[in-house]
């Protein structure tokens, strides 16, 4: 097992930016005793609190775990879960697993895409797709603001979106 890295900064010292959210990242690093193998756990925490990962954040984590920034960047870009784009106010994750695909998930995705076209740029709605969220019994499904909605039709999903984008097409 790798040796624990030496802490480089007092744990109680606030981040120079004064942003308290860094404390949560520090706490995760401390819990894993700053070991380099906790990188993915730390990235999970960072994305949880900041919403997305920024170059600054990656530098900060690299420093905390005593890893080269290239390694942190390499890991963060490898996994689909980590994102560098800030999220919109609302999110709609359409499942495109096999069961959903067989039951018309593609049509749901097209309906969502058509409806919110352009909205993503305004930061209002982020549309994503997932490779199976494991609710296959309810296919087709989507995660609408984190809530699983099952047995969808294009009408139902468009109605859900209308609540967010009242001036949509």
């Amino acid at each position: 097992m790798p040796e624990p890295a030496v802490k480089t900064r007092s744990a109680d010292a606030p981040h120079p930016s004064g942003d308290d959210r860094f404390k949560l990242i520090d706490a995760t690093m401390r819990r894993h005793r700053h070991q380099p193998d906790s990188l993915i756990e730390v990235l999970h925490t960072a994305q949880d609190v900041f919403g997305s990962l920024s170059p600054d954040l990656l530098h900060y984590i690299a420093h905390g775990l005593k890893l080269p920034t290239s390694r942190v960047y390499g890991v963060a870009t490898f996994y689909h879960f980590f994102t560098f784009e800030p999220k919109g106010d609302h999110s709609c994750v359409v499942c495109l697993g096999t069961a959903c695909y067989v039951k018309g998930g593609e049509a749901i995705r097209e309906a969502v895409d058509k409806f919110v076209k352009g909205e993503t740029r305004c930061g209002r709605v982020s549309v994503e797709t997932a490779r199976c969220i494991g609710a296959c019994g309810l296919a087709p499904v989507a995660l609408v603001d984190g809530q699983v909605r099952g047995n969808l039709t294009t009408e139902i999903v468009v109605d859900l979106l209308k609540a967010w984008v009242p001036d949509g097409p």
Partner: protein
Amino acid sequence: MDLDDLIEIGEQEILSRKAYRFRVCAAAGCLSAGGADVRRAIEEAVKASGRAGEVEVSSVGCLRACGEGPLVQIDPSGDLYERVTAAQAPSLVGAIDGRPCEARVGDPSRPFFSRQQSIVLENCGLVEPERIESAIAAGAYQSLFKCLHELTPARVVDEVVASGLRGRGGAGYPTGVKWGMVAKMPKAPKYVVCNADEGDPGAFMDRSVLESDPHRVLEGMAIAGYAVGAQQGYIFVRGEYPLAIRRLDVGIRQAKRLGLLGSQIFESSFDFKIDIRIGAGAFVCGEETALIRSIEGRRGVPRTRPPYPAEMGLWDQPTLINNVETFANVPAILREGADWFAAIGTEHSKGTKVFALAGNVRNTGLVEVPMGTPLREIVETIGGGAPDGRRIKAVQTGGPSGGCIPASLLDTPVDYESLVRLGSIMGSGGMIVMDETTDMVNVAKFFMGFCMDESCGKCVPCRAGTVQLHRLLERINARQADAADLSKLEELCEMVKHASLCGLGQSAPNPVLSTLRYFRQEYEARLEGTTPPGEPTGLDEAAQEATV
């Protein structure tokens, strides 16, 4: 903590149960259909009826008929209610006295339930996943005690070998042999890893097991740790399964508190710790060497084998990697004996297999059947066939690594060898039913798109091959392909299959090859009206672009 203490906890739990018990399904499927509200409403209705003294409400794991959720079952009558809404709660409370109920009544004796045989899921839907006492009352950790105090590690390995259990992750490697290999390694420390990175789209068996009966998996891992001489275990869970992660976390903490995990388990000299590692959304991490890299905090890129993880795994130490369902079988094998387990199933595939039945089928949900059960029984008798009077066209097993089995071959028994002969694999247990409205070329393209996105990029056959296969399938789909393209597709499939580094690439062509084998006419029908042979296709330049 010794066996008497354990039994006492279980007895206390059973004594404290009230006369009537509502079991509300709290697995992800039912929760997403509104199960949490239903539970709250039933609790309030019980309180309002003034019968809180004799009626209790508990959140249990998966009740299996996921497509009909939220599900509620009432003890001791065993009555099952489907698609329950919060508004029906008061009438459900009335139902314990035999009064008519507004909620839709399910039939627990219909084939969907009666044709199943449970080993892995024996306590699923009965125990409360977030209360260890409930699991102990159902017998959890007794097999671990038996191992620690009555059996030597070598005996435990022998027992698992004799049971004939094979890896449930898909490849079907004999579990006991793998355990024996790790046990014989002279190096220490050793590690036990549970692969809960259930990446196949359409598979949700492992998630259901973890969400419904986490202690069963933890106990299986601890037994494995004792057998191979490891003191540290890791469970690698998909980040997409937050509920399973939470329940495992709660389970590990509760087990530690009771001395069932941690130092000197059951007052023996055996120490075993389990930590959770959360995946970050890479399908390739289901491959064991990639999974190891991911636990080490690196990019999940596979490496060549040998050396196998049994010899050089996590931090280059001997590592035992098994799937969730494999570990979940272990406590039952140790409790009932290897002969009991070996009597179930077929000659080469022993025990039962859990399938996640979904797609165009009436009864979707979790199904556990003995190995050797014909596919037809699973999809038609248990699954109820395709809805709306349509006919089943094919059954897809094994996710993106598997293949499509046509309706004409549905009488094939489900075991590892039979499915491989048909060009598919057992896989982890996702089973998607497709009816006559499903377009097979599209299905092949869908899976190829999946593998293309998920290819880690390390080896060229997979990285570039999947891209080219996907393009060819797109061309065929768009009726722009000719017969030469079709043979190119087949050639390329063979190349990717034989030249790729890991299981992802080696099995990526399976969906194409199996649909070509059984539904070739659908491909050929699209070759009409195509460009004449010999015209440049532009694919060669594209191939170069893609590999750069």
